[in-house]
C-alpha cells in the first residue's frame, strides 16, 4: 500500500531509559530518587518505535520523506534509549540533556517533553509507549495532548492510518467495552503491548545507526527555565519511599493426594472462607 503522494509525516517517538525490570530496583534514601544505573530502553517504548516505523513503511517508506525522530530527556546515558531506537530504524535522534531535569515528576516531565516536541518543526504525530516501566503512572501521553493541543489517542491496542484523510483509527479497551476511535493529525498516540511485535535491530540497522545524527539540546535551547522542571517545577513532592518488607517465607507442601484439603484448611485458618 505504498503511496508516494502521501504528504511526508514528521513523527516524534518518545523513548525512556529505565532501570531494567529484570533486576531489583532501588530508591535512593537521600534523594528519594530511583537508582538509574543498569538502565535499558523501556520495554514498552519498543512498541512505540515499532508503531512509528510500521506507519512509515505502510505509507511509502522513508523514501517518501517521512521522518521518525526518537527523542528522550535526561542526563548522560539516557541517550542510549535513542540509540536503540535508531538501531531499530528511527531516522534521527533528539536528546534533551540538562542536569536540572533530575527529579521531575509527571507534570514537569510533560512540560519538558511538550517543549521538546515544539522544538521540532511541524510535528504531525507523537508516539509513546503505554507507560514507563519505572514510574508506571501512564499519564504523560494525556498531559502532552493537553499541553500541545493535539488529539489524544492513548492505550491503542491497534493502529490504522488513512493517508488521504490523514486520520488515525485505533482500538482501545475502555471499561467494559472495546471502543474504536478516530482522530485527525496532529495527535498523541500511545500504544500497548498488544499493538504490534517490535522488531529486533539487525546488523545492518546497528551499522546504519552509527551514521545517524542525534541533536542535543538543553533547557535554554527549547525555551524553558530550569525552575520550570526538576523538583522545583514539579507539583508533587515525595516525602518518603520505603521498601516493603519481603514477604515472610510461607509453607511449601508436596501433594500426596490431599493438598486440596490443605488449601481449604489454610483458607479457613486465615478466615478467608
Amino acid at each position, binding site marked *: 500500500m505504498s503511496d508516494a503522494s502521501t504528504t511526508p509525516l514528521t513523527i516524534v517517538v518518545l523513548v525512556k531509559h529505565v532501570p531494567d525490570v529484570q533486576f531489583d530496583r532501588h530508591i535512593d534514601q537521600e534523594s528519594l530518587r530511583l537508582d538509574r544505573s543498569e538502565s535499558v530502553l523501556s520495554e514498552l517504548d519498543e512498541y512505540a518505535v515499532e508503531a512509528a516505523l510500521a506507519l512509515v513503511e505502510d505509507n511509502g517508506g522513508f523514501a517518501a520523506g517521512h521522518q521518525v525522530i526518537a527523542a528522550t530527556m535526561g542526563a548522560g546515558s539516557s541517550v542510549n534509549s535513542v540509540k536503540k531506537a535508531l538501531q531499530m530504524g528511527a531516522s534521527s535522534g533528539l536528546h534533551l540533556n540538562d542536569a536540572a531535569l533530575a527529579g521531575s515528576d509527571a507534570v514537569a516531565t510533560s512540560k519538558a517533553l511538550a517543549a521538546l516536541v515544539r522544538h521540532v518543526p511541524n510535528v504531525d504525530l507523537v508516539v509513546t509507549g503505554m507507560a514507563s516501566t519505572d514510574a508506571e503512572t501512564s499519564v504523560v501521553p494525556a498531559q502532552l495532548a493537553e499541553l500541545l493541543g493535539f488529539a*489524544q489517542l*492513548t492505550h491503542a491496542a491497534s493502529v490504522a492510518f488513512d493517508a488521504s484523510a490523514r486520520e488515525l483509527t485505533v482500538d482501545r479497551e475502555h471499561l467494559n467495552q472495546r471502543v474504536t476511535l478516530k482522530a485527525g493529525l496532529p495527535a498523541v498516540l500511545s500504544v500497548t503491548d498488544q499493538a504490534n511485535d517490535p522488531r529486533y535491530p539487525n546488523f545492518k540497522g546497528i551499522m546504519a545507526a552509527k551514521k545517524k545524527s542525534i541533536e542535543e539540546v538543553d533547557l535554554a535551547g527549547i525555551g524553558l527555565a530550569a525552575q520550570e522542571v526538576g523538583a522545583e517545577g514539579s*507539583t508533587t513532592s515525595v516525602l518518603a519511599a520505603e521498601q516493603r518488607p519481603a514477604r515472610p517465607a*510461607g509453607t511449601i507442601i508436596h501433594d500426596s493426594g490431599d493438598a486440596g484439603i490443605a488449601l481449604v484448611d489454610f483458607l479457613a485458618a486465615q478466615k478467608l472462607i
Partner: protein
Amino acid sequence: MSSALVFFTDLSAAPGKAQRELLTLASRFGTAVVAAATEISAEAREAIAGYGIGTALQAANPGRGFGEHELAVLDAALQHTDADLVLLGNDSFSRELGARIAVRRNAAIVTDVIDVSAELIATKDELAGSYTASAKSTTGVLIAAVKPNSIEDAPAGSAGTVQVTDLVLGDAAAPKVSIVAVEEKVASERPSLSEARVVVAGGRGVDGDFGPLEDLADALGAAIGASRAATDAGWISHDAQVGQTGVTVSPQLYISAGISGAIQQKAGMQTSKYIIAVNKDVDAPVFDIADLGIVGDLAKVLPQAAAEIRRRRA
C-alpha cells in the same frame, strides 16, 4: 479542613465496589462533594447519602467525542467546588482525566494511591508494589487516583437527601476524537478483576483448560485472572491478564495456578494480602512469595479444594 471532590465517570447505576471505596475515603474530609459525568441515578443518590455526603454535581453525557465530556465535567466541578483534594479511579481513563486537569490547573497527580491522610499526604505503591511512598502536592491541589481494595468500604451515616445540582458546562469545542464503534464485552457474573477480593489466576500450566480454575472461582466467588503466557496462547481474553501490562490486583487472596511467577507477573499481584501458589515445578519463583505453596497438579488440587469448600458450606 480539607475539601474533597470525588469524581466518577459514570453514576447512572448503583455504585460499584471501587466507587463505594472512593466515597468512604471522601467522607473522611471536612467537606465532600460528588461529581459525575452522567446523570446520577436514584440508587446512586441513596448510596451517596449513606456516606454522609449531601452534595452532588452532575452533567448528562451528550455523547459527543471520546473523553472530552468527562474532562469538561471534572474541570467544571473542580472550579465549582474549589476542592483541594480530587479523588478518582485508578483505571487508565480516569487517571488520564486527572492528569490533564493537573497540567491545566497546576495541580499534583498521584496514581496507585492506597490512602490519603487528613494532611493530604498520599500513600502509594511504587516500583510495582516493592516500595511504598508518600507524596504531597506543592501547589495546594492534590489529584489522587485510588487503587481498588485499598480502602475498607464503610458508609458513615446518612446525610438525609442529596442535593444534586446540574453543572453548567461552557460551549464545547468540536471534539478532536470521535467514537467510530463500540463493542460491549460479554457481561460476567463474576466480580471485576481489579476489584475482586479473591482472584484465581492461571498460566502456562493450565494448558488450555481453565475449567478447574472456573470451578474453584465459582466456589469462592472469585474473579479469574491469567498470566501473559495464557492470554497470548489465546486460552482466555487479554482482559484477564494480571501483570505489568495488564491489570494490577491487590485482593485479599490470590490463588496462582500453573504460573511460574516471572517478574512481570509478580508486578501485578505481589501486594495481595495472601498468596497461594499451585505449580508442578518446585523451583517456580512464585513459591518465593507464596504464603502457601503446593507442589502438585492443579487439575487435581483445584477441583478437590472446590469440592471441599462446598462440602464445608453445605
